[in-house]
């Protein structure tokens, strides 16, 4: 099956507009001004969905969809954000961060969920010129993926699922809300299906293979960090998102990073950013450079970060090259030290000259003891990615490693 990129863009835009309606409803009901930070549609393995949600307790509302659009949705708040909203919405209800929310608080959240999700879904129904039925809202307070409607992941036939995610943020307060929609895979895939000769179509099965190759690339990059630093690492999450190109910078956290940016050239081509928050960069440098350094990192410390970026980049893209039986060059690492949005903006600007949307592959490398975390953003040129997918032989999916010994 081939996926029409234009259709994926259209549904992403519907989700963005739906989230804007939902945010407007939240503002209208609470007086708390909110805006939509970012909306993306992500193709994730079930394991990665669990990683994304893992370790967080959500308070929220689940609503099922049926009719022209079938699937599951959830409006989720962290507990503090939910308490702030209930304080405004239902004065007198018990909704502190520590106590269980009472019936009135839960009722208020269910109603706001109902109204917000109604706003989210209306645009889809209009576009599809059909009815989208919503189930009554169910209040939930759960950990991790359990905030998603019961069985949403188990019911998915495929190993991968589409997840629409919108993050809404309050202007003046510490309030974040998330809308998640998991359309039924088969039905949604049919909505995206393009004819075989469609110019912008991307083969779906190969996209999922490429997603898996990306996770394996992130795992190799993580192993390389471990080899250099002696610190055990793991890949926390790896996902392939489809986002409007102008939203790419907003996918980075609002934080200062030190790291490297490289352009990779070939099939696929694009950009790779490997970013550490400042304390993490210090930890990495202390673990790799056996000498006292100038503050903050000194030339040798910066050189270590550059070299680590170089080695992690190879770990990331070599598997693609070996499976595709091609070579992918990359530029020497460019050291960057700035806000995440400022680092990703020039990349989005360059790619935005020829594409409206980006396939963004973001991975997080973490350590069990929390010594450091690293974020990897791979943003391929859409045309080059399509060429790579067209030439990908699925049966070579495991041929990630080169056989050095047979050559030397």
């Amino acid at each position: 099956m081939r996926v029409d990129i234009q259709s994926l863009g259209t549904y992403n835009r519907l989700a963005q507009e739906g989230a804007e309606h939902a945010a407007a409803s939240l503002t209208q009901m609470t007086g708390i001004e909110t805006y939509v930070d970012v909306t993306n549609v992500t193709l994730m393995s079930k394991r990665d969905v669990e990683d994304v949600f893992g370790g967080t307790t959500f308070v929220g509302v689940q609503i099922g969809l049926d009719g022209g659009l079938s699937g599951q949705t959830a409006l989720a708040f962290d507990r503090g954000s939910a308490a702030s909203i209930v304080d405004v919405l239902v004065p007198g209800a018990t909704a502190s961060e520590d106590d269980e929310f009472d019936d009135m608080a839960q009722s208020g959240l269910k109603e706001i969920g109902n109204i917000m999700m109604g706003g989210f879904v209306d645009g889809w129904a209009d576009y599809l010129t059909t009815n989208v039925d919503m189930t009554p809202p169910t209040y939930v307070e759960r950990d991790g993926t359990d905030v998603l409607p019961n069985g949403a992941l188990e019911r998915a036939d495929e190993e991968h699922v589409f997840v629409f995610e919108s993050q809404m943020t309050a202007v003046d307060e510490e309030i974040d809300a998330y809308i998640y929609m998991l359309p039924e895979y088969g039905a949604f895939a049919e909505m995206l299906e393009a004819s075989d000769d469609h110019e912008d179509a991307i083969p779906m099965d190969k996209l999922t293979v490429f997603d898996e190759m990306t996770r394996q690339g992130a795992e190799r990059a993580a192993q390389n960090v471990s080899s250099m630093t002696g610190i055990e690492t793991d890949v926390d999450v790896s996902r392939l998102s489809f986002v409007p190109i102008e939203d790419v910078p907003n996918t980075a956290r609002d934080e200062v990073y030190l790291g490297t940016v490289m352009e990779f050239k070939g099939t696929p081509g694009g950009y790779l950013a490997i970013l550490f928050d400042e304390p993490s960069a210090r930890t990495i440098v202390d673990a790799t450079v056996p000498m006292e350094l100038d503050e903050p990192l000194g030339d040798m410390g910066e050189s270590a970060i550059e070299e680590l970026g170089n080695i992690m980049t190879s770990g990331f893209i070599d598997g693609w090259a070996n499976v595709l039986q091609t070579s992918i060059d990359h530029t020497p690492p460019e050291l960057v030290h700035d806000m995440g949005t400022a680092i990703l903006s020039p990349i989005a600007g360059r790619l935005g000259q020829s594409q409206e949307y980006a396939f963004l592959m973001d991975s997080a490398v973490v350590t069990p003891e929390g010594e450091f975390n690293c974020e990897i953003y791979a943003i391929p040129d859409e045309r080059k990615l399509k060429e790579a997918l067209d030439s990908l032989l699925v049966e070579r999916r495991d041929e990630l490693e080169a056989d050095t010994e047979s050559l030397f």
Partner: protein
Amino acid sequence: MPPQVLLVDDSDFMRNLLREILEENFEIVGEAENGVEAVELYREHDPDLVMMDIVMPIRDGIEATSEITGSDPDANVIMCTSVGQEEKMKNAVKAGADGYITKPFQKPNVLEAIDDVVA
């Protein structure tokens, strides 16, 4: 007299690491930050071994290796790179490289690869 080695890598950090591994048993006769400097220093010192990075500014390590082995077929060059792509390795073989070490490396791997080439 210990064998003479030329280190070629655009990273200070990596040259420093290689120097620490090698200086006990080898004489480091020069350090280059790109392929152009590597060729110049090779001609100047005629070392027994070159440890050559691939991804470097100005001229990459495969081009530099090709030029060095083109003028001195007996040159010993070990690619010492983060790149683990089979096509790149084939290009390195064509350029005349004698060995290939993938970063990140451990000291024993480096010494073993050198033994294989210069023993």
